[in-house]
């Protein structure tokens, strides 16, 4: 008997189809694992279930009744509770106050004692040792999670969705979480469990649904399925013709990192990148790859050794790193890359304005010429160089950021998710550009969560797991399975 069923869910974001006709079915009294690579559509699916995102098409039924879409309050009232990856608690309030946040009891005066008692009862029932009166900021991550779960259970919860609950938990804490989940399952709750750790899925889940590229791949009982099969479902697809062939001829090492560490963001990163080479830095979201990039670029203080062309270096700011010949193209175009109110040209020249200044005054004409040249080089399509960056398409914004560092000769370019959220055509152009740049001798370190991209574009793949570089795969030995093995924490 299905408790919750979703049919034909479709959701597009600019440049990406996050969900493409996805069906999903959850029974009462089961733990249902939801699996897929980064970007497979898991997060969007649970956001639709929780009402945080309204689908373009499709419907969700609870006990056979259609739910209003895109209405988080309605979803909660009907008994769907979601514990998102980033815990959404108010640190200064107590555990009890957080448990009842938004559903306080008592008008006009809060019944504080009553709520505190009820919250404590819930927390005890979960078997957690969380004092309800303690401010959340004093609690450990595991305890906070228990507060989140208790919060999800206030009122009549029927469906509990946990988005990577174990990502920040230690082994024994995960065990305790499982004990709680089994208790809730016995009560008849339907539980959706998202995790990248396959061993956990086998330990707790009854059934599994696999998504890939926004599509439903399979839903099946876990009995009789093995790890290799799950991985095949998750990654199994042809590396299509979308990737241009690479013919690298690497030269000497450009960048070398040894024992680079910046706890707690990442603990041990060792690898090198050679001239004319693309090194893919693979791993799951949260493995610490972006932090490694920021540390290389002088944007994060890190311990360890870093050498550029054999000479030890230590950059105290991105300005110094750029001066030395590095470039970093962010994964977060809007937040950390673009100047939305400046024109396309101004966005490209911003890092090197002093080259266009004479006696302190900018020569706008020379700046314009240089910007136009580089815009042609990356085949930027804009209405003009003064078109505001905010109004360009994702692909053109990405080209803009790349172009920013190509104004002067570079040694190493770090590309963080270079094709995130851009359409297929623009992707191919970015790949072509990467090939051209490496052919000219540039070294590229590419962070990517898209396995096909990592496999097709990297000459070598370095894999990170929970803040450590786990191993390195040459192009020939880099298979999806091997990368996923390392990325999920082990060779077995």
């Amino acid at each position, binding site marked *: 008997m299905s408790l919750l069923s979703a049919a034909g869910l479709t959701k597009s974001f600019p440049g990406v189809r996050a969900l493409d006709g996805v069906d999903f079915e959850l029974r009462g009294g089961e733990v249902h694992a939801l699996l897929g690579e980064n970007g497979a559509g898991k997060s969007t699916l649970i956001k639709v279930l929780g009402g945080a995102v309204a689908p373009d098409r499709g419907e969700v039924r609870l006990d056979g009744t259609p739910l209003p879409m895109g209405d988080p309050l309605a979803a909660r009232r009907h008994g769907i509770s979601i514990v998102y990856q980033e815990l959404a608690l108010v640190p200064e309030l107590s555990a009890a106050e957080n448990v009842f946040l938004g559903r306080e009891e008592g008008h006009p005066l809060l019944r504080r004692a009553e709520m505190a008692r009820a919250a404590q009862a819930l927390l005890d029932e979960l078997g957690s040792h969380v004092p309800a009166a303690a401010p959340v900021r004093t609690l450990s991550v595991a305890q906070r999670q228990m507060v989140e779960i208790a919060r999800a259970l206030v009122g009549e919860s029927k469906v509990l969705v946990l988005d990577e609950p174990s990502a920040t938990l230690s082994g024994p804490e995960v065990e305790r979480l499982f004990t709680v989940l089994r208790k809730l399952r016995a009560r008849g709750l339907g539980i959706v469990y998202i995790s990248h750790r396959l061993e956990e899925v086998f330990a707790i889940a009854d059934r599994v649904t696999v998504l890939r590229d926004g599509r439903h791949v399979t839903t099946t009982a876990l009995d009789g399925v093995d790890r290799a099969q799950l991985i095949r479902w998750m990654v199994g697809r042809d590396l299509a013709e979308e990737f241009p062939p690479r013919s690298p001829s690497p030269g000497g090492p450009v960048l070398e990192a040894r024992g680079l560490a910046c706890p707690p963001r990442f603990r041990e990163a060792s690898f090198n990148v050679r001239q004319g080479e693309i090194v893919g830095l693979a791993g799951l979201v949260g493995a610490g790859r972006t932090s490694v990039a920021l540390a290389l670029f002088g944007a994060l203080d890190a311990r360890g050794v870093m050498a550029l062309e054999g000479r030890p270096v230590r950059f105290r*700011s*991105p300005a110094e790193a750029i001066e030395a010949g590095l470039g970093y193209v*962010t994964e977060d175009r809007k937040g950390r*890359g673009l*100047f939305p*109110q400046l024109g396309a040209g101004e966005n490209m020249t*911003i890092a090197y304005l002093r080259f266009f200044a004479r006696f302190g005054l*900018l020569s706008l004409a020379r700046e314009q010429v240089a910007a136009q040249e580089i815009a042609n080089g990356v085949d930027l399509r804009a209405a003009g160089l003064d078109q505001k960056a905010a109004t360009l398409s994702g692909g053109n914004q990405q080209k803009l950021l790349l172009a920013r560092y190509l104004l002067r000769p570079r040694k190493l370019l770090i590309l963080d998710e270079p094709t995130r959220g851009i359409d297929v055509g623009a992707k191919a152009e970015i790949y072509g550009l990467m090939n051209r740049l490496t052919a000219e001798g540039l070294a590229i370190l590419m962070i990517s969560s898209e396995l096909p991209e990592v496999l097709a574009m990297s000459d070598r793949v370095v894999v990170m797991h929970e803040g450590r570089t786990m191993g390195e795969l040459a192009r020939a030995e880099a298979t999806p399975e091997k990368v996923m093995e390392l990325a999920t924490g082990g060779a077995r």
Partner: protein
Amino acid sequence: MIRRWVSRYGIFVALVAECLVLALATDAFLTTGNLANVLRQNAFTAILAAGMTFAILTGGIDLSVGSVVALSGVFCADALSRGSGLAVGIGVGLLAGTAVGAVNGLVVTKVGIPPFIVSLAMMLIVRGAAYKYTDARTISGLPPSFASLGQGLAPLAIMLAVFSLAWLLLMRTPFGRHVYATGGNREAAWLAGIRVDRVLLGVYVLCGTCAGLAGVLVASRLNAGYPKAGEFYELDAVTAVVVGGTSLFGGRGSVWGTLAGAFFIGILNNGLNLFHVEHYDQLVAKGVVLLAAASLDRWRTESD
């Protein structure tokens, strides 16, 4: 498209319309005496607002400029009354502003306190210092040559020079572009290799120096160092900048907009005076204009 046009040129249209209305509706507005008066009276606020434009473009603010007007005027007058030369007196006044600006900038960048709080504190500290330094007395007995600075068209000429320089700095130097970039997206600016701390320090030093200059001019106008001078000027300056179309969120705006904003407010006051509107009602009118300008900015930003 319309939104962008309105936010960029709206203030100039409004200013022209305002002048037209007053010219047609009153006889007094379009007289040399009145116009010269309006221009001179608002030159001081406009100079403050020129500096303030930089601060607001970075997404910050400098509330200490009104107090700096007093401190710089007092220092300048004190030096002159002790027999220093004109250049020394003016230099001391300017330097006082620069120094306060540097303190603002250093606390904002090194300690990391929001500019609103830093400059609010400095507003109190500097005002207190001005009173303390003078024992709350007026410093008079200044040389007559000093008084000419604040007379006639001199303040106007100085104001135009300040705005031309400010425009050059903003639109034609790497520093100016960095100001826009820092206000538009500070994180991105830093990752693009801009030394954001230096940009902010420079901005507050500029802001303080403009205030120092305004202080000297006000002292010359009054022909005295007066520790109460410049009260609420910081609010007039912010009003001029916002009415002039510069976004309080940073990253967008222009000095010419600020100039127009300053005169829009100044002429509004003048017009209300000519119509014999009471001072209290004038305050209300100014408040309404400020709200309208800020709403316009909000409306403009929504389209981004």
